[in-house]
């Protein structure tokens, strides 16, 4: 008797077994994009595992944080590897999350009946950015300290609730040890909790509804015709694992050739180093805010920018409800153009922001 049979006797796994046996993934020319979601999830798993390992040695206080990271990297066996993987995987995670987001955006997979999947997905994207922002401060080095100072300062530009938000984020008026404690709590408890809930929902919806097929391909189907299906288990899942291993390989190469530096310990009273800027995934928005004139339409430029980005975020969440044509199963050129514009904007402004002084 196998283990599965033993469990089956007690828990009745027939539903699950049937589901796994029957579950299929449609086969068509665009199916390569299907793997991005799983890869993002895998990287999240890597982050949780390496994060928990780092938790065993990290100390979230202004006097000890930097030293504890230094300790992990220099004294703990393979600490340098765990830390490097965590730092690089964070960047890859955000990159893949964006890739997954854009692929869904382009392929209009958000259309009816998958609106909720999209909503949970966009919220997850924001959560990943939150992870990146909160985690960046934790080593408490010069770069991260000042980047946080600038970033939370921008949060203060939100109208009405700006100052309150700034104080809430910083745990006070300035970036101090209190900020570090808060960001630590956010990074290891609050955000993981929210992410777990949303990921569970996101996956539940995907499993219930199956994979979406691009409109163009769907339209070519004759009534009653179904696309050929690939069995989820073992065909698709093995391909998924393959993709994950490729990601591991990329991580290993990055950790080997571009190890993450310790930097200098943060000194709150030091002068802000020239050219301070946030991590690459915030560069586009950061640079946009820098380019805005000091006054626009009678309001402070930065404030207009922040409100603008807030509006864009809300609109993004609402895309499935705004794209009527896609919901009807028709090709939606307008939203494709929007997606292209969005992608071009993000990529170009990230590059400009990187090379600007």
């Amino acid at each position, binding site marked *: 008797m196998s283990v599965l049979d033993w469990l089956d006797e007690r828990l009745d796994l027939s539903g699950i077994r049937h589901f796994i046996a029957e579950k299929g993934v449609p086969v068509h020319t665009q199916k390569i994009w299907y793997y991005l979601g799983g890869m993002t999830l895998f990287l999240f798993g890597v982050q949780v595992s390496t994060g928990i*390992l780092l938790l*065993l040695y990290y*100390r979230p206080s202004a*006097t*000890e944080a930097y*030293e*504890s990271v*230094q*300790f992990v990297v220099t*004294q*703990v*066996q*393979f*600490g340098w*590897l*765990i830390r490097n993987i965590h730092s690089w995987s964070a960047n890859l995670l955000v990159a893949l999350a964006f890739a997954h987001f854009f692929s869904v955006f382009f392929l209009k997979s958000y259309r009816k009946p998958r609106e909720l999947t999209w909503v949970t997905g966009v919220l997850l994207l924001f959560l990943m950015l939150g992870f990146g922002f909160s985690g960046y401060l934790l080593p408490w080095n010069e770069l991260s300290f000042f980047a946080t100072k600038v970033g939370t300062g921008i949060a203060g530009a939100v109208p009405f609730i700006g100052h309150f938000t700034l104080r809430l984020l910083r745990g006070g008026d300035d970036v101090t040890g209190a900020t570090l404690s808060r960001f630590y709590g956010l990074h290891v408890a609050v955000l993981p909790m929210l992410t777990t809930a949303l990921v569970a929902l996101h996956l539940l919806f995907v499993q219930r509804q199956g994979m979406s097929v691009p409109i163009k391909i769907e339209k070519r189907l004759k009534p009653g015709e179904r696309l050929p299906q690939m069995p989820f288990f073992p065909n698709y899942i093995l391909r998924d694992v393959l993709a994950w*291993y490729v990601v*591991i390989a990329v991580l290993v190469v990055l950790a080997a050739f571009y190890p993450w530096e310790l930097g200098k310990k943060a000194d709150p009273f030091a002068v802000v180093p020239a050219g301070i800027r946030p991590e690459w995934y915030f560069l586009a928005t950061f640079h946009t805010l820098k380019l805005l004139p000091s006054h626009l339409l009678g309001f402070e430029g930065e404030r207009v920018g922040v409100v603008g980005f807030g509006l864009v975020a809300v609109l993004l969440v609402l895309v499935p409800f705004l794209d009527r044509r896609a919901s009807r199963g028709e090709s939606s050129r307008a939203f494709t153009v929007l997606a292209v514009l969005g992608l071009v904007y993000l990529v170009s402004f990230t590059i400009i922001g990187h090379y600007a002084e």
Partner: protein
Amino acid sequence: MALTDKPPLSAGAAAPFDRRSFLDALLTVGFVSSAVAIAYPVGRYLIPPASGEPATESAVAGRAGALRPNSAAIFKFGSKPGIVVRTADGDVRAFSAVCTHLDCTVQFKTDTSQFWCACHNGIYDLGGNVVSGPPPRGLEKFVVNIRGEGDEAEIVASRA
């Protein structure tokens, strides 16, 4: 042929069975080695390192039994030198060994029972206070605790 009804094998062609088992073997080897490559570092990571914890706030200054009265020893406090001294009365004290004048490392003179900096003749007393010479301030004083008992008792110096 009565002995076997298997189709004759053509020379040089591998049977599908062999290829499959080769592939499975390759997969197993690959999986196991990559799993080891992942599990091994994680396992070693979990083992506590020799130095215990980051030495920001405290450091071990030596064994209590090894320090004779009216003698001192240099120890490592983070990346800077410290000096631990046992006075003639048996009292154990620890200070930063970084001279406050130009960062030279001070030493202990047993004849005068004072700390002396060889660079420009700065002299500190057993309380770390400046007695004479160029140092503008006294030596940073550490809090001393003895951990353990008997021969292996350790002197632990911590930042005040």
